[in-house]
């Protein structure tokens, strides 16, 4: 993407995220940066009155100065805490922008490892890349004050142009203000040139070292994450990994030290000529202006104002340019960020509303379904043509990798078929409006995840919920009594990740809450993927026994490795290498020579 366009976009986004913040900040900065210049103006006036012995005027000037300063200080002081608050909020938003995109992007991107890696990368580089949004915002806070100073400086410099040049004797013709300005501009240009060159060099060095360090950094990041889990400590100790890990940490530290030394060496070297040049300019200012005074062309008081303004401008211009240079030095992060943010959102290609039926008569059918993951040639599902009856319970079995969960993802339209169709009430499912279609399904996935919010919120998937409906659902899964014993009942937070007052529940209880979530939704089609994997035999048995009650007249699909569950289903679908190879009741399939018999015997033999 065009370099300037991408930065323009960044500017717009920053402004969108932090409108209030930047407004307060601008007011505060203008007040703060104006202070020294107001000081110079009054200093000049006061000195002139002192020299010409107009003490009465001096006093009134002092009073004016005091009042103006007080007002500016107070404005700055009022704004500061507001700026700080808004900064916290907008920074937090900035950090979350990329992650938030995951919620709305098209599902097959959200699930792809490549996209997840891109998100990891973007988030990891947030604090260290030159073009990341938080860093751009930070640098802006150096650029803006410098700009204000430059503007003020130029205003205060204008007396230079009304100097009475006629007074200058001829041999000092070169002490002309025009000459001063020219020399000044020249010196600044040289300084800028050096700065730009060295900024480029240090930015290049920086991004080179970051790329070299990226592998180390990824490893360090990953290890930090894993080590957050105390349980990792068990393996480390039993398998004598501490030595290796300690070595790794030391190496990482040495590596970082080398990188830092190299990086800062560049800073050290480039600073010397810049400093010398800055002081040279200072010398020029004082000597030229001093000469003008000595020659009678300038009043002493003005020297203070002009030298003050010039020194401010001398530091402000390089700072401004340098920060701008750093900002645009490495647009890689921004480019990656926008490439990521431009990933397509959930498409709403379908637009037909799903008819609302009270009788749960939603019939699914699949014809000639085939599916390969986007970007892959290999078909993970093929030749699937099935008709499903409303209200029946279907068990889905098969070995790991045979396509069971993928089939579910297609039924629920998380993925679109590569070939073939899925039909809902005889209409192609992709024609329906996506959100309404999602509402037809209550799913408990194998890798379900409960959130740190309250039990009631988890079940209803809403900040507000119907208490009695939630309690009913909890009763249905056998958690009602337990929840009633809790002080906050269904308002109790799960775990302490979000709120300290939360409580931890066992794996089995979590599973029941996940099932309750699907039940609460009261969707006509229920899908349970390995719902009892973490449960002990008694609880598992309870769930199986009640399964009929739980799903009542809904259509249900039930994936499980525990083939015992297939016994109470109406029909069993046996998956093998992406195809449905057998279909029928348990009685029928267990007699047939085939995959189902193989799977059944493998498990049942231990229970005879």
């Amino acid at each position, binding site marked *: 993407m065009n370099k300037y366009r991408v930065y323009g976009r960044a500017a717009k986004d920053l402004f969108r995220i932090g409108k209030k913040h930047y407004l307060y900040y601008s007011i505060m900065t203008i007040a703060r940066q104006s202070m020294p210049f107001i000081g110079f103006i009054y200093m000049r006036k*006061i000195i002139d009155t*002192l*020299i010409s012995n107009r003490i009465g005027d001096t*006093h009134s000037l*002092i009073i004016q100065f005091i009042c103006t300063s*007080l007002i500016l200080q107070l404005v700055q*002081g009022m704004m500061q*805490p*507001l700026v700080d608050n808004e900064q916290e909020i907008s920074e*937090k938003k900035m950090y979350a922008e990329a*992650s938030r995109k*995951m*919620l709305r992007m098209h599902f097959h991107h*959200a699930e792809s*490892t490549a996209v*997840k890696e891109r998100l990891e990368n973007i988030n990891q580089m947030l*604090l260290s890349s030159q073009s990341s949004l938080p860093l751009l915002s930070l640098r802006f806070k150096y650029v803006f004050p410098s700009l204000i100073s430059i503007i003020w400086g130029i205003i205060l410099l204008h007396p230079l142009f009304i100097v009475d040049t006629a007074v200058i004797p001829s041999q000092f013709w070169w002490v002309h203000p025009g000459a001063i300005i020219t020399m000044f501009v020249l010196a600044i240009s040289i300084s800028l040139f050096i700065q730009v060159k060295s900024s480029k060099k240090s930015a290049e060095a920086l991004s080179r070292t970051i790329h070299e360090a990226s592998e180390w950094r990824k490893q360090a990041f*990953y290890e930090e994450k894993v080590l957050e889990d*105390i349980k*990792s400590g*068990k*393996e480390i*100790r039993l*398998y*004598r*990994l501490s030595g290796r890990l300690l070595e790794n*940490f030391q190496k*990482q530290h040495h590596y970082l030290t080398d990188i*830092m030394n190299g990086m800062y060496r560049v*800073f050290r070297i480039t600073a010397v000529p810049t*400093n*010398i040049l800055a*002081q040279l300019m200072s010398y020029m200012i004082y000597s030229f202006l*001093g000469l003008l005074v*000595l020659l009678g062309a300038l009043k002493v008081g003005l020297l*203070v104002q002009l030298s003050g303004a010039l020194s401010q401008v001398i530091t402000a211009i390089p700072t401004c340019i340098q920060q701008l240079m750093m900002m645009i030095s490495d647009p890689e992060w921004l480019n990656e960020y926008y490439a990521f943010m431009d990933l397509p959102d959930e498409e709403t290609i379908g637009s037909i509303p799903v008819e609302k039926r009270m009788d749960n008569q939603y019939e699914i059918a699949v014809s000639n379904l085939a599916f390969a993951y986007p970007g892959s040639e290999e078909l993970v599902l093929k030749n699937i043509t099935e008709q499903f009856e409303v209200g029946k319970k279907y068990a889905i079995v098969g070995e790991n990798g045979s396509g069971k969960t993928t089939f579910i993802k297609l039924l629920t339209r*998380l993925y679109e078929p590569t070939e073939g169709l899925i039909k809902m009430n005889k209409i192609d499912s992709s024609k329906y409006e996506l959100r309404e279609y999602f509402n037809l399904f209550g799913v408990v996935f194998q*890798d*379900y*995840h409960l959130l740190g*919010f309250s039990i009631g919120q988890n079940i209803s998937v809403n*900040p507000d919920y119907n208490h009695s409906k939630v309690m009913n659902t909890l009763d249905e899964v056998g958690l009602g009594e*337990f929840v009633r014993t809790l002080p906050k009942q269904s308002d109790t937070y799960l775990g302490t990740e*979000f709120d300290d007052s939360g409580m931890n529940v066992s794996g*089995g*209880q979590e599973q029941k809450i996940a099932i309750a979530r699907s039940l609460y*939704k009261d969707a006509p089609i229920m899908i349970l993927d390995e719902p009892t*994997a*973490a449960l*002990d*035999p*008694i609880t*598992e048995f309870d769930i199986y026994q009640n399964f009929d009650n739980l799903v009542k007249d809904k259509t249900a699909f039930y994936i499980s*490795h525990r083939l*015992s569950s297939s016994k*109470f289903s109406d029909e069993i679908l046996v998956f093998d290498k992406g195809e449905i190879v057998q279909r029928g009741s348990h009685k029928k399939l267990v007699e047939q020579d085939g995959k189902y018999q193989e799977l059944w015997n*493998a*498990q*049942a033999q231990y*229970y005879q």
Partner: protein
Amino acid sequence: MKEKWQNLIKLIKMMVSYRPRIFLTIIGIVLIQVLLPVIQLYLSVQVIEWLINEEEIQTYLIHLAIFIGVITLLKISEHQFGVTVDKDTELFRNYAKTRLISNFVSLDYPLLIGKEAQEKYNNAVALTWNPWTLFGRVNKELVSLGSTFLGLIIYSSILIQLDSIFLIYLGIFIFFVTLFNIFQVKMDQKIYDEKAKVTKKWQYLRKLYGESRLAKDVRIFQMQHWFQRTEEETDQTYLATMKPKVWLTWSESVVINVGIIGLTAFSYSQSVRLVSEGAIPISNFVLYAGMVTILAQSILEFINVVGKFSTSLNEMGKFNTFMAQEPVFLHGEGEKVPKESLNIELKNVTYTYPNNEAPTIRNINLQIRPNEKLAIVGENGAGKSTLTNLISGLLQPDEGEILINYLPQKSFNILDYYSLFASVFQEKLLLTYTIKETIIQGLPFDQKKYEKTIALSGLKKLISQLQKGDETAIVKEVNADAIQLSGGQLQKVKLAQALYKDTPVLILDEPTAALDPIAEHQIYKDYFKFSKDKTSLFVSHRLSSTRFCDRIIYLKDGEIAEIGTHQELIEKQGDYYRLYEAQSYYYKQDKDSEQRERVTGGGTL
């Protein structure tokens, strides 16, 4: 107070062990930072002086050159020192992080368990996160402390020359600054907890957004609105929490600014008076005028830094708390470790998790014979994993003792003790990055042993299918070209890891939870092959597997409720029998399955 001193000394010791020269740098930059503003101010004073006295042009230019030359040297030194300070700051923070995490992996495991222990660790880690936490800012704080304190003394001694009453005004000003600073510190403490809660909520939300496991649920359950509402509510909570601080800051700002203006007014009017009396030259007016601003800034910064540094010293205490923990196990020389045929005995062993009220393991008495295959079953939370952790030495019993070949567990060096056990845990964590590394972990490489393990664990086929064989990377977060092992494949690798260690005791914790029936069956078939000459403990829900063990113990509420062979326990018709019946119900090939009594479940979660 005494604690603060101790923390200060510990902090200095730590900085010295990082790099002693860091203090030279600090002193250097402090001196320059104090002197430079004064000298620059003097420059403008002198220039005005020279101009008012109408010096010779040549002398003016030469004097000017000398003055500016000195300033140039000082500026260059300041920059160089500044760069070193920046570098040291970043590296010191990393140094602290490294020390911390090294301690984490070496501490005795019982010291890491429980809410308190976790908090200790989290508090210490939080001190190294970023440049604004303790170890990221302490270096610059010391610099600031030094330069503002020194500056205070030097600048006020200049201004006192105007009139000694200035000292009193200064005193009043410092009093108010300190007062407000104390209020701010108290306010910060008060809202700290609330603020931390809000930050926690924001961080959690952010984590949720990027949580790939949620992707399906988010869409099917339309969770976006929920998140949006929660975020907005949290934002409002933040602003409400910060309100009192905003008001305090406003009042502070008013008082302090009025104070500064007062001092400025004093300095200006005094110097004007002295100038009009002819007691001081006009140029000195510039000196005093400029000095007030510098002095006021130094005072503000000084008080601020003192407050911050005091907080820093407190935080240092949190670091020490974590680092200075005493070991609970024996790390010195212990009994010689038996080579084969272990007899394991538990005598009245009781264990309670920290912060739990009831013991998880209660009065367990158990004798495990050499080469015995023992199954441990029970409901969720009954204490199965805890029991194996106690036996393998990761946890220490609160009461009772564990004996290996009649010698108490305590009498062994803990690392020697660990060499007796190899566990396959439920959590499949990877801190090694290739298949080969994972199998070997931290043990020395033995070619014969390695090949034997590959054959035994059934990994030969998998490795031969991979291009890079056993050097294939398996962690995607670290190597872009890594492969994602399936649940079953990872299980095999972890099993190989345990087998390679070749210990007298093998512990398997739910080894078939994620496997399909065929893979599960394979594991059971091989189980006897690889646990042939070993004592083995087998924890599982799947009672199909436990039938083949020599004995089964059924844990209930932390006690051994039933013990015996499968047949014995079935005949007993107790808890084990009920569990087994529940699981096998649908597998039994009874013709009249409708006539089977419905087994009443009796388990509680």
